[in-house]
């Protein structure tokens, strides 16, 4: 393919490192994000492993208590702000969205570059706390009043998070405008691939929710420097107000993490069942519904913080409501698979395990959304298991699925199928060994964020730690396989999976301007028969 269309985007543009870090090409920016995020992810995983090692046996100590506090804070900050929130949009959104829409680039290429620079600046500032003033020890939630009093360098960390928020806003804004303005000729809203719908809903949340946490984190900074007193009870403020402001953003933020992941799953499932997606419009609208209802449920993080009974009942009810559009998606994916001609390749394995793990995460979310049970489960390792099932089992697995799905397009090489499947298997098994026991320990009452625990929780914790090793073994297999493929992999054809969306119509890797001729869209995004990919 490349011979016909000329050079790929790797071969055009300025040479050397400056051709990358100052490039406004959406594809290069996507890859910049990919490398920086995978680096941070690796650091985060190492921190997680250290914590699990500490928790292997009761009373077993490799790190002192205050270091453990910094470990989970840094792990949380890295995983949340540097991995899952930028997550799929920053990497695959940047790379694929213009391709999927048949555009040359995003609406504001220079702002796109700026957002990557803000991202690395924020990340750099956060890591500077290692050297200046000590790692923060507040947890990634920076709850007041402790975050105001803590002697560690919380100021720099919240400022870093503020910058990262700004980067996220700019990405969201860019995507919303791109989707409104740059769709190819003939691509109506309902001919867009569902990944684009996911990004669209996400973009709105990024725009509407992130500024609130931005100002909230700035207030922590101001509070630490000037003692304004808004969240400090000794001056007259109310720490619970901080929690409200924080979760008004941070709950919608979990949908920032999951909606693009669901979008990617909606691409993978039809491609590997060779069948048009079931209920296209329902999936598209359920993304928007999740985005809207997701705004109104932040109170469920605060059932034990002091709220009126009415407020708690309302928040609980709304929390249950969010489950409906989510379930709509799950049923649609399953219905798509039904009677499809399924090809069980690595991306589909990730997608199926996403559905499985995310469902567990979702159902346990309902348990916490119910008032009476949440009082018992609040701040136990049950919660730790729940959010790892949704964020890691959900978004994390979708991320790796998307990486395997779009790898040939991004790098123009094929990876080996067998090691990828092995890596997936290890990851999936390890994941369940790592986190499922924490549901049980949490149910028995083990609190989270402690560096030690009572002997009665010994068994689930030991299993969990062993699980973490299996998981990491899987990650290593996947990584080695992909890195090998970069050099030695077979050359990828334009459309290795026989997918029907636009990004597969250009060469792998695409040329700088994406398409030689601006595409004109006549069929739907999953019309395998119409495109001659499947016999009718």
């Amino acid at each position: 393919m490349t011979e016909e269309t000329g050079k790929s985007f790797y071969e055009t543009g300025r040479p050397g490192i400056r051709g990358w870090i100052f490039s406004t090409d959406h594809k290069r920016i996507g890859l910049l994000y990919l490398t920086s995020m995978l680096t941070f992810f690796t650091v985060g995983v190492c921190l997680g492993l250290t914590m699990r090692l500490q928790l292997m046996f009761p009373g077993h100590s490799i790190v002192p208590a205050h270091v453990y506090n910094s470990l989970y804070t840094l792990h949380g900050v890295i995983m949340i702000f540097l991995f899952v929130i930028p997550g799929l949009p920053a990497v695959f959104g940047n790379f694929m969205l213009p391709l999927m829409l048949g555009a040359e680039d995003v609406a504001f290429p220079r702002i796109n570059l700026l957002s990557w620079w803000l991202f690395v600046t924020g990340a750099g500032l956060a890591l500077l706390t290692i050297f200046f003033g000590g790692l923060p020890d507040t947890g990634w939630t920076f709850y007041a009043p402790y975050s105001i009093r803590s002697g560690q360098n919380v100021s720099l960390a919240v400022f870093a998070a503020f910058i990262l928020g700004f980067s996220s806003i700019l990405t969201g804004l860019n995507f919303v405008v791109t989707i409104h303005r740059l769709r190819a000729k003939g691509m109506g809203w309902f001919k867009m691939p569902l990944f684009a719908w996911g990004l669209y809903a996400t973009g709105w949340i990024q725009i509407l929710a992130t500024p609130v946490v931005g100002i909230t984190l700035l207030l922590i900074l101001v509070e630490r420097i000037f003692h304004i007193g808004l969240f400090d009870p000794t001056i007259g403020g109310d720490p619970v107000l901080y929690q409200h402001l924080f979760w008004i953003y941070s709950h919608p933020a979990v949908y920032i993490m999951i909606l693009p992941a669901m979008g990617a799953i909606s691409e993978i499932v039809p491609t590997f069942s060779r069948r048009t997606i079931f209920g296209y419009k329902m999936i598209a609208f359920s993304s928007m519904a999740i985005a809207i209802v997701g705004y109104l449920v932040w109170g469920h993080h605060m059932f034990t913080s002091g709220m009126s009974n009415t407020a708690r009942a309302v928040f609980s009810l709304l929390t249950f409501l969010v489950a409906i559009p989510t379930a709509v998606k799950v049923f649609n994916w399953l219905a798509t698979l039904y009677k499809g001609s399924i090809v069980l390749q690595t991306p589909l394995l990730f997608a199926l395990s996403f559905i499985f793990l995310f469902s567990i995460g979702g159902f346990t979310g309902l348990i916490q959304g119910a008032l009476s049970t949440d009082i018992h489960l609040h701040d136990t390792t049950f919660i730790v298991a729940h959010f790892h099932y949704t964020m890691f089992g959900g978004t994390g697995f979708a991320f790796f699925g998307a990486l395997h799905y779009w790898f040939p397009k991004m790098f123009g090489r094929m990876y080996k199928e067998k090691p990828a499947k092995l890596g997936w298997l290890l990851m999936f098994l390890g994941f369940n060994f790592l986190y499922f026991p924490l549901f049980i320990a949490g149910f028995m009452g083990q609190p989270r964020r402690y560096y030690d625990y009572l002997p009665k929780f010994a068994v689930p914790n030991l299993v969990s730690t062993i699980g973490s090793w299996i998981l990491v073994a899987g990650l290593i297999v996947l990584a080695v396989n992909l890195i090998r493929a970069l050099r030695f992999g077979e050359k990828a054809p334009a459309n290795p999976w026989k997918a029907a969306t636009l990004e597969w119509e250009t060469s792998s890797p695409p040329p700088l301007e994406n398409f030689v001729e601006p595409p004109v869209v006549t069929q739907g995004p999953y019309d395998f028969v119409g495109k001659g990919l499947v016999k009718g």
Partner: protein
Amino acid sequence: MEPVEGSHEHSDYIGAKIGMWLFLFTEVLLFGGLFLCYAVYRHRYAQDFHSAAHELNAVLGCVNTLVLLTSSLTMALAISALQKNRPGLSRFYLWATIGCAVIFLGIKYVEWGAKIHHGIYPGSEHLMANFNPGERLFFGLYFSMTGLHGLHVIIGGIVLLCVERIVAKLPRGEDPGESGTVTIIENAGLYWHLVDIIWVYLFPLYYLLT
């Protein structure tokens, strides 16, 4: 010819406008968090907020409001001058707008200076010893909100300076609508009006509700 990177940067008037409005939305929400705090504490400490507001100088506040409203007018005039392809006039009005911004900041400086001189600033001993919790929060919020607003005035002023430079460099006889300069000045104007509007809300909430 080989495609050059950046060559595909197109000028899309509507796209630029949507982007700007979305950005303004985020600014409103940024301030929204603070307005929310204000609402919560005003509700909780109504009496304290009432008495603390007496400390603020309503005359200076009024003058500042007039200054900013005037600057909005000159901004609008600058835009329409450029739309009518009169860059010289446009630059004159831009300078007038920047002048208003400077006056506004000057008056703000005097106000803050007086407060700080009297020991009324966040964390001061005077504030902790002689004021009620609600009054302390009132001043805390006053300094944060007017401070953040002042920061926006400064940023807005810098943006206007840049726009002035761009207009000054317009080649003679070129239609500013074609080159995208009109889009730039319109978006800068939108930003400036937003900064104004926020003040229009801050002013009554702090100075007039006594």
